[in-house]
């Protein structure tokens, strides 16, 4: 009789553990999903801001057509890939960020442009959007790290295996220009 109760007790504890671990995993997975949605919102915001920026800048920087086109192209490419995975998107968003950086660096050389109220407002919006992208990326990656830890660490890894939870993908933005040193030529 006593043995029966002990077995029953162990079974109940086991079931409670499985429920707890499963719910914990679902909670972490939802947090990752939510964090990803946050990044998405900010990336969309950047797509929306760029045409405005290009329009505003166009009138001032006559000789920088290539820079402007590069930004527009990078934006269109990134927007097209907006349903792709984190790794693919990271590459395209990195390219867009680099092109934008070049455009804003070019803008520094045009005092008239920098005095334009519209441009200043856009610049603040873009700076903030860039920050929001990196903060949401930061939060997303933290969430993914915690989720992956739960999936891979004992004992929750057993539950994760039973219900086939897949580990999350980190969102790394790779900026090609940042890796190689700037080229300086004295001619």
């Amino acid at each position, binding site marked *: 009789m006593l043995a029966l109760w002990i077995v029953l007790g162990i079974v109940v504890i086991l079931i409670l553990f499985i429920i707890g671990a499963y719910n914990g995993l679902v909670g972490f997975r939802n947090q990752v999903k939510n964090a990803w949605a946050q990044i998405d919102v900010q990336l969309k915001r950047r797509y929306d801001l760029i045409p405005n920026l290009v329009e505003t800048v166009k009138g001032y920087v006559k000789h920088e057509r290539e820079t402007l086109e590069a930004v527009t192209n990078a934006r269109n490419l990134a927007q097209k890939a907006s349903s792709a995975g984190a790794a693919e998107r990271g590459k395209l968003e*990195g390219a867009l960020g680099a092109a*934008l950086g070049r455009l804003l660096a070019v803008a520094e050389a045009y005092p008239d442009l920098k005095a334009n109220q519209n441009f200043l407002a856009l610049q603040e919006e873009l700076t*903030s959007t860039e*920050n929001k992208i990196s*903060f949401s990326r*930061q939060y997303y990656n933290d969430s993914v790290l915690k989720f992956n830890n739960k999936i891979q660490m004992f004992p929750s890894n057993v539950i994760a295996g039973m219900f086939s939870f897949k580990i999350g993908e980190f969102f790394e933005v790779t900026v090609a220009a940042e890796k190689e040193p700037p080229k300086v030529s004295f001619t």
Partner: protein
Amino acid sequence: MWEQIRSNQVRSVILIALIAGLLLAVGYFLGLYFFDSAVGGLVIALVVWAIMSLIAFYQGDSILLGMAKARKIKSDDAPRLYNVVEEMKIASGLEKMPDIYIIDDPALNAFATGRDPSRASVAITTGLLQKLSRDELQGVIGHEIAHIKNRDVLLMAITSVMLGTIVILSWYASRFLLFGAMTGSGRRTSSRGGGGGAQAIILIVGLVLMILAPILAQLIYYAISRKREYLADASSALYTRYPEGLASALEKIGGSTRQLKSANQATAPMYTVNPFRKEGMKAADLTSTHPPISERVRILRSMAGGASLADYNDAYRKVRSGKQGIISKNAAAAVGAVGIRQASLSVPGELGLAPGKAAGKAAPGTHDASDIMLRLDKWRTVDCECGARWKIPPGFRDNNILCTRCGRRIRL
């Protein structure tokens, strides 16, 4: 992060339990003196506490904001402030955007309020808004959002209500006791003549407790508050990945000795820095709601290795040269290595974007903030062709003004 909050909650719960114990003890003796039964006193203490708690829970934030004379703003009124708050909301993973308030005061301070993370507010003085660069503002807002995220606001509300109850009860009780003893008509002495020595001892213990309880409760309250400040600093560094921002903001705030007009002792712990600080406060000061600014700055600046909670913990230990950190070891190790980002103004950010130069950005910001305040007061602005901008007070009746810079008449 979650582990860190939990481990701190344990410590905070112990301290709250201490205050609650004091409250019950005060009620117990109150009952013994005035009603001949401890239960009566306990009931009174609990009723007073419950009423004050309900008020604090449902009306606390509006009372606080009203006392500080804060005004709510929208994103168009102060785009930069709004953006920075949203950035920190995202970085901390807060579910809902907090309401943003501006306090029209040249003093440099900010605070957060709200009973839970989904209905929170942050308030900042116009003085501070004008003084800070974008990075510094981010650090300060990160600190306030951390207070919300770590549920400090609720914690401090609970403790301050208990403190308030203890102060009120023991004030009245000790006055009545003293008055009764002087006139010789106290119930205790007349109802039971032959109480003996035990009775007298209880009386004295009770009286001593009545006098000491408010002081003890206050010290505990301060201890909780100081701990929470360090934690909010650590979280701010983690959110912004840039401890220098908060450090230099604190330095600017510390350099100013203006006191906030609308703060009082009860609301002091809600602010970024103690609104009643004086020069040369020491680290061991037990009667302060905030750690000394110089020490907070030194800790933030010692975070050489990274911006994680573990890095803050190491810096804290180094600066205070003690063994114990502010954050528990498991919690600090929960999130992996976290790098410090570059200053956002001089170096391209993570996504290769180069914002304007530091000097170029700070200058328009100062004007923007005061313009927003004026716009809120229904002032109008008009731009002259020479580039000067004129601010027109709401009661101005003429249809043109003279630009004193170039001599032109500007039509309104």
